[in-house]
């Protein structure tokens, strides 16, 4: 399996640092009542993958920062980290290119952070360009715009889209 952990901190309803271990191959189920935070977890994952705020049910990135709830203190930043397995060295090319220190870790981390005034991507804990994240996802064969992530209420989107847009899916596949 490739996805090890998802770590949310100050992101949407996840104020305290929350680590969700997805290590196992196979099926992980997430359950809970309405409004408990399940879809926010999915938003955290696609947020790191580069999704824009409008696809995260927010008008701007700063709305992703934990807002304090009814009578609590807002967080000053939203941070999400995804750790990916590298025991097969699949990311080692990108690691050596970006870090230039001969390290070859068993696990790599990509992350994204948003404050009221800034936004940054992270690779192995250090600021990096968005293109590094794109390269990692490309190597992992993951991509937020592809159909392996189906957001709530969106499963029939493929039926409702125009036949032209649907044909373009074939163009991209071919």
């Amino acid at each position, binding site marked *: 399996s490739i996805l090890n952990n998802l770590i949310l901190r100050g992101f*949407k309803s996840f104020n305290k640092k929350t680590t969700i271990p997805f290590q196992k191959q196979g099926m992980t189920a997430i*359950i*809970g009542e309405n409004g408990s935070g399940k879809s926010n977890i999915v938003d955290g994952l696609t947020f790191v993958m580069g999704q824009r705020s409008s696809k995260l049910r927010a008008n701007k990135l700063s709305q992703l920062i934990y807002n304090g709830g009814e009578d609590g203190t807002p967080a000053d930043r939203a941070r999400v980290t995804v750790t990916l397995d590298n025991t097969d060295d699949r990311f080692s090319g990108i690691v050596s290119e970006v870090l230039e220190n001969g390290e070859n870790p068993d696990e790599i981390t990509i992350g994204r952070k948003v404050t009221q005034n800034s936004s940054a991507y992270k690779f192995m804990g250090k600021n990096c360009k968005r293109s590094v994240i794109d390269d990692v996802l490309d190597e992992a064969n993951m991509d937020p715009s592809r159909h392996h992530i189906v957001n709530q209420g969106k499963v029939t989107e493929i039926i409702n889209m125009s*036949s032209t847009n649907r044909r373009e899916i074939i163009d991209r596949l071919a």
Partner: protein
Amino acid sequence: KKEKFYSTMEELSEYFEEIFQKLFDGGSAHLELSREGDIESGLLIKANPPGKELIVLDSLSGGEKTLTAIAFIFALQEMNPAPVYVMDEIDAALDQRRSTKVADLLDEYSSDAQLILISHNEETAKHAEQVFGVTMDNGQSEVLSIKLN
């Protein structure tokens, strides 16, 4: 590259029908171009549940549309498998029996990929290797590991 387009569409259409028939216990389905021979035209979905006459897609029921969409999505996955799948309440419109059919289908992919499913359906959660429960307290979410039997 008209040939490449046609072979891709044919292959996708075959996966689509195969999964459709699995979810519907029969029936037929395929993909075709809206204008024959024109690979710039639109891609139409023809979906025919068992015992019924082919009808415009919009006339299908809410649950039938969901199953048809799921068949299409997983046909795409067959063409270009991803290591992680995330499905957020895709079974909302499904009755218990169809929900279980979808969970059985997802089981088939779980040996080669990680599937992350959000669902209000307890049956679906029982199919999973691990379950996380999310709770909300005073505006803050918490995640717990849960053992279901």
